[in-house]
């Protein structure tokens, strides 16, 4: 009943386990996974900068004059 006929099964199991562990280790250690959550921060920085630039373009530089943005929109050119 007890013989060495099933050693191959055991070795197969051990080998499969080692392959799985080795693959997972190689995958994790060599790549950095870029998850969708990463882009939120750079998007936020750009959105803040864009909103600031728009607000500043809409602020007249001296009291009573038109802001740069009003001038661009009204006159349709860049002076």
């Amino acid at each position, binding site marked *: 009943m*007890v013989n060495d*006929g*099933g*050693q*191959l*099964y*055991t*070795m*197969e*199991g*051990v080998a*499969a*386990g*080692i392959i*799985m*562990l080795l693959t*997972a280790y190689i995958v*994790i250690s060599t790549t*950095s*996974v*870029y*998850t969708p*959550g*990463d882009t939120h*921060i750079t998007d*936020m*920085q750009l959105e*803040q*900068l864009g909103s*600031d*630039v728009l*607000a*500043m373009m809409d*602020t007249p*530089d*001296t*009291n009573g004059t038109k802001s740069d943005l009003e001038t661009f929109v009204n006159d349709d050119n860049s002076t």
Partner: protein
Amino acid sequence: MMSLDFLVGFTVFMLALIMVVSMVPGLLAGLESSGIDYDAVAYRTGVILAEDPGWPVYPPWEMKTGAYKDEIERMGLAVSKETPNILLSTKVDAFFNGSFFTEDDYRNKAIFGDIPYSYNVSLRDKDLTYNYATGDTPPSGRGYIRRAVKIKEPGVANISYNSSFNETTLDASKPRIFTVRLNFSQLLDPSVGPAYRIDPRTEPVNITITEFGRYLNRTDNPGENAKLKDVAFYKMDPTRPMPRFTRIPFSYNTMDPDLYTLFLDRTPNDLVPETEVSDNISLVLKPAATSIFTLDQNSILDIRFTFDDGVPQKTFMNGTYLYDYDNVTCPPLKPAVLEVAIW
């Protein structure tokens, strides 16, 4: 009937599979939490500096002297709560004063981090008139925010030759008094937005008299310059029943660059110079001095330049110049970039 070897092999395989599957969720949390933290703290510091006037607002935090530094709760650079992204130049100069604020001050009054972050705050404009930076040099992996701002600078009263101040018909024996009048109720009129307002309580008052040579009495005294006897400050409260001007007590004969600077022909002087002037007079009255004068929003402040040479007088400059929105040149708002880095 399953053999024992098969079961052992299968068990080894299942154990390895379970270990791999339990490692997979760790792949999705690819971000270091401290890395997100840097950007969040940098963003918050950017908001505090660019959109908040600071606390206390009035009397403003930038005028606290050394002994009262602890009363500053928050350092913000905005002109007011209603004008985000428009910074006041006096607040900017006070904030980047490295000899007054220590690293701990910046951490406690601007960054508010749970751990002592390293920081770098910089403000630059296009032609580098403003080229401030405070803190260490940032490394590559840092939290970062960049804000586009505009800087409000104080107005200047440029008084060149104006025939209405050249009173040639004055009595030759009377001393000449040239007054610059600041009517606070006019200046602090709420119809002018805070981004364009002249507020002598928070910004310096700059009076520059040029072409003084044209006011000299060349007919009676050719080639001689007039003597500026003194500069005095008078205040009046028009809301009182019988308003009149009273001379403000001030240490007129001490030179204190934190309170004022007076340049006669580009030489510094105190406020009782008794010196001859030939070309220009420049007086900058800092807000620290205006706060000593105890003025309120209805007061009228007179700055009187008295020229007295005895008989005959050597200049004809006399009269009252109104320091108001029509006469004072307010420089346009200067675009600049504020960057905060935290690591």
